[in-house]
């Protein structure tokens, strides 16, 4: 029974994470809703759980914040106990344990992504039931349903950093355009061996796709250029 209780704050959401040769690019929209009211229009859904491991949160805001805080605590302990950075698979496993064991009480769809020395970049998808799926790219949240086709058709293996960032930006923009529970700004993180770079795309600078202008005003007219002044 994973339905949100009435009055619970909902991370409606479009989230995704994509692996590339040197690292991962994760991205999310910024809308948090309580019913039809937008409680926070500039939410940061990309949560730090370790220096090179982030998670994207969707579902109940309270549940995902609580779970992420617990895993953040566990990973700090791991680092102190082992004297080494935890692998992304361990972090994902910690998320899975909590999500699966409490599946009846939680409403949390989480994507874990990061970089570690042994494996390099990796992306793990943990949907509602608490299953764990390693994938080269993962999308989640209510907005993801609208972009499965776009992602399947567009994704290519072997991309570099910039192409991956473009892919994430375009996908999220399309999802935000069609899903009422997603919107606001696009927040992205590029996680590599060297560090975490945060990227931000404001709401008015989102990539544009078909906007339906031709429907109202007929075929697109060529703009009339002013005639050059003739100087005899």
């Amino acid at each position, binding site marked *: 029974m994973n339905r949100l*209780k009435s009055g619970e704050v909902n991370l409606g959401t479009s989230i995704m994470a994509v692996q590339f040769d040197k690292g991962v690019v994760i991205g999310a929209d910024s809308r*948090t809703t309580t019913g039809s009211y937008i409680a*926070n229009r500039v939410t940061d859904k990309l949560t730090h759980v370790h220096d090179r491991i982030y998670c994207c949160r969707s579902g*109940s805001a309270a549940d995902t*914040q*609580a779970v992420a*805080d617990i895993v953040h605590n566990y990973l700090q302990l791991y680092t102190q106990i082992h004297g080494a950075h935890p692998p992304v698979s361990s972090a994902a496993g910690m998320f899975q344990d909590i999500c699966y064991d409490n599946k009846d009480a939680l409403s949390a769809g989480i994507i874990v992504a990061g970089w570690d020395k042994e494996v390099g970049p990796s992306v793990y998808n943990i949907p509602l039931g608490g299953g764990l799926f390693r994938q080269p790219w993962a999308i989640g949240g209510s907005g993801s349903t609208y972009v499965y086709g776009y992602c399947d058709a567009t994704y290519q293996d072997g991309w570099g950093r910039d192409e991956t960032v473009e892919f994430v930006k375009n996908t999220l923009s399309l999802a935000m355009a069609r899903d009422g529970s997603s919107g606001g700004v696009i927040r992205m993180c590029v996680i590599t061996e060297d560090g975490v770079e945060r990227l931000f795309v404001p709401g008015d600078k989102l990539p544009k796709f078909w906007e339906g202008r031709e429907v109202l005003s007929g075929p697109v007219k060529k703009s009339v250029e002013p005639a050059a002044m003739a100087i005899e």
Partner: protein
Amino acid sequence: MSQQSAFSSPGFDFSNSVRNNFLQEKGMPLPKATSTGTTIVGCLFKDGIILGADTRATEGEIIADKNCEKIHYITESIRCCGAGTAADTEFTTASISSNMELHALSTGRKPRVVTVMTMLKQYLFQYQGHVGAALVLGGVDSTGPHLFTIHPHGSTDKLPYVTMGSGSLAAMAVFESSWKPNMERNEALALVSAAVSAGIFNDLGSGSNVDACIITATQTEMLRNFVKPNERVEKERHYTFRRGTTAWKSENIRDLIVNEDITLVGATGDAMDIS
């Protein structure tokens, strides 16, 4: 009736719900919890944080308190506005305030807003939304000014301006149109006032006066009843009755103390017994 046990089990005791269901079936309506209908706001400005709140507390459709205080003390430089069930906000904030004092003594450091936020969110999450407290937490600590909003289920948001309660939409409209970063104290106070007033006049669950609290690095100023836009007009006539309006026929005065015996406690009366 629940059994008296030497070890009280933790968590809520739901034994009264059996009695309540029985009474409801017999036609007795449930008493409505006092709710702070409410408009509470918080706003970041150049020197710190300004918190604002209305002062109406409701019990269903009745106004239980026309001038209640919704800005609660947490520490010297941290305050918390509470919306939702009045008892829940009152006791939750008091409990965390007490724990923060102990925490500050234990760590030897000035308390931080994030600490209060974490304590509140973990408490509320544990009770899965049954503790109906929606809070606006603001304060200035060694790391700077911070403003948080905490929902009953335990989710938090960190923002430069926030509103909560039934009047939050009216207040947020004011903020969204006029808030800008690095405002001066007067500007910010006027904005907070306007936001709470929007809630007071456009939301039935909010009303009466505006309370404000200005928190900066150096001092915290509590402006109780900063604006009073709903004062009752002076009544046009005097409704008191002059003495002698009611005639009486007989008078009988009885002393309620019938018989008084004074016995000093302790062998030597007031002096300390050191035998």
